[in-house]
């Protein structure tokens, strides 16, 4: 399957600072790709270069096999970008903003398409409203509508839910999934690891201008993930029973609780059976699953310490 976006040896320098230092990346058609990284890691720079907003210092980026600099007239027609910062032109209405944006892409916006976009982003009743009168959430939805107005094959969402409330965030997630289901490839940068975990088919982690990992989200969580079972006890134990110790259990809270951590794919059954056989009186049970956030923090810490990050390298297919 030919990648929709190909990035090869991409570098961007601002004076002595390397915002991107040789990034290699393929984005597959029809996927939601989550680009994660701390502030200043290079996420926005990377997608801005592909969208044509920023020029690379070295390397190349291709969309549908065409170079984003040499064939910009083609690549920009198939790319949509929702910028991180909310922007709006206070002189115009929502409808005018969308019609102008379509016109910049050489498209005369049909009435049905306009209504479809406004309805999908819950802006239908704001069609004639001036953009300055919209709430923050509406302005962000308008940005998304503007990025979709020319029906792009690839949509870049730069921190799409930064500063929006939970309800709107969930609504946007639903809409992004609908876009993916209709065949649009979506690349999103986010600080919200929950968002990436919820939405992304694959994850890329970028840190200090280098892509340190690209992996299928579920595989990443499976491989790095673990789950913990914690039993709060009726009667404190002085020591871990041997059958439980053999499974890796340890005492907590001075013997008032016992816990065990197992890889994400394994079951707690043997531990629970051993606890029952050892006569452990259980008062309460708690479980915890490793989140993408735990994995992300581990990866970025490993990178900061200069260690090779675990897992497949960027560009490899897991």
């Amino acid at each position, binding site marked *: 399957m030919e990648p929709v976006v190909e990035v090869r040896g991409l570098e961007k320098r601002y004076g002595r600072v390397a915002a991107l230092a040789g990034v290699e990346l393929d984005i597959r058609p029809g996927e939601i790709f989550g680009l994660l990284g701390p502030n200043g890691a290079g996420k926005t720079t990377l997608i801005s270069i592909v969208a044509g907003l920023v020029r690379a210092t070295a390397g190349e980026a291709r969309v549908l096999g065409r170079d984003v600099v040499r064939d910009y007239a083609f690549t920009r027609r198939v790319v949509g970008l929702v910028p991180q910062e909310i*922007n*709006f032109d206070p002189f115009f209405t929502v409808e*005018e903003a969308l019609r102008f944006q379509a016109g*910049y892409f*050489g498209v005369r916006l049909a009435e049905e398409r306009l209504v479809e976009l406004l309805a999908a982003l819950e802006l239908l009743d704001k069609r004639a409203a001036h953009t300055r009168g919209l709430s923050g959430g509406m302005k962000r939805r308008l940005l998304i509508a*503007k990025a979709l107005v020319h029906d792009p094959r690839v949509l870049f969402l730069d921190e799409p839910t930064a500063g929006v409330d939970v309800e709107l965030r969930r609504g946007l997630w639903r809409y992004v999934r609908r876009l993916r289901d209709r065949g649009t490839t979506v690349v999103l940068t986010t600080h919200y690891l929950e968002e990436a975990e919820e939405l992304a088919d694959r994850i890329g982690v970028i840190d200090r201008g280098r892509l340190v990992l690209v992996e299928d989200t579920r595989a990443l969580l499976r491989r790095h993930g673990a789950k913990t079972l914690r039993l709060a006890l009726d009667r404190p134990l002085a020591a871990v029973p041997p059958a439980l110790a053999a499974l890796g259990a340890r005492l907590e809270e001075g013997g008032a609780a016992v816990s065990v951590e197992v890889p994400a794919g394994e079951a707690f059954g043997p531990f629970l059976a051993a606890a029952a056989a050892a006569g452990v009186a259980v008062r309460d049970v708690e479980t915890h699953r490793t989140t993408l956030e735990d994995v992300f923090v581990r990866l970025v810490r490993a990178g900061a310490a200069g260690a090779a990050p675990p897992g497949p390298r960027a560009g490899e297919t897991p």
Partner: protein
Amino acid sequence: MISIRLQTLFVKEVRRFLRVPGQTLLSPVVTTTLYFVVFGWALGARLRMVDGVPYGRFIVPGLVTLGVLSNAYLNSSSSLFVMKIQGTVVDLLVSPLTHAEVLAGFVGASVVRGLAVGLVTWGVAGLFGGFSVAHPALALLVLVLAAITFGALGFVTAIWASSFEQVNFIPTFIITPLTFLGGVFYSASMLPPALRGFTHANPIFYVVDVVRFGMLGVSDASPWVGGLLLACLACLAVGGAWLLLRSGYRLRG
């Protein structure tokens, strides 16, 4: 064949200044009226005729030129600069608009606003000094060239500027002084030789002079010199703006 992209940008830019007509089109009426009250009537009563033309009529081409130049400049500079500040310039930068289309959209709208203000100024001034156009096609051509030049200059300034102060620097310290010292209110022949030399070194003098030839049929210098100079300035300004836009300077990271 004009692309949908260019048509859209041009229409949007024209509609933008039409949304605030009080600021963009009507304020020149007040300014022109004041100039006529102060200069046309107060001074005109003493000077009566300049180069064989009543003073009230003599100052009309200069005032029209001032209106065209400053409004052409203000349109492109304020629009693009505000887009940079608001972040809406991203809409253009990620689109397939070519550099030439972006420049043509901004400069084209600047020409429309410059000429609209020039027309309003001419209409108001005509009420005071009388209407006359000796060479209408030439006058229009010269004013269009002047609007293109200053529209492109405004575009360049907006790309370069990082504050409103920098955007306002050009009209405050360059356009207005050079226009006022470029023979709007007087003929260069009325000046002592030293000041006349200074006036002849001012490029806006030739612009005002050739517009005056187009409107009144009188001029201090050869209208060919003014016309040629203006054509060169327009080419330089547009060429420079295109090169700057193509370089990505201060727009594309």
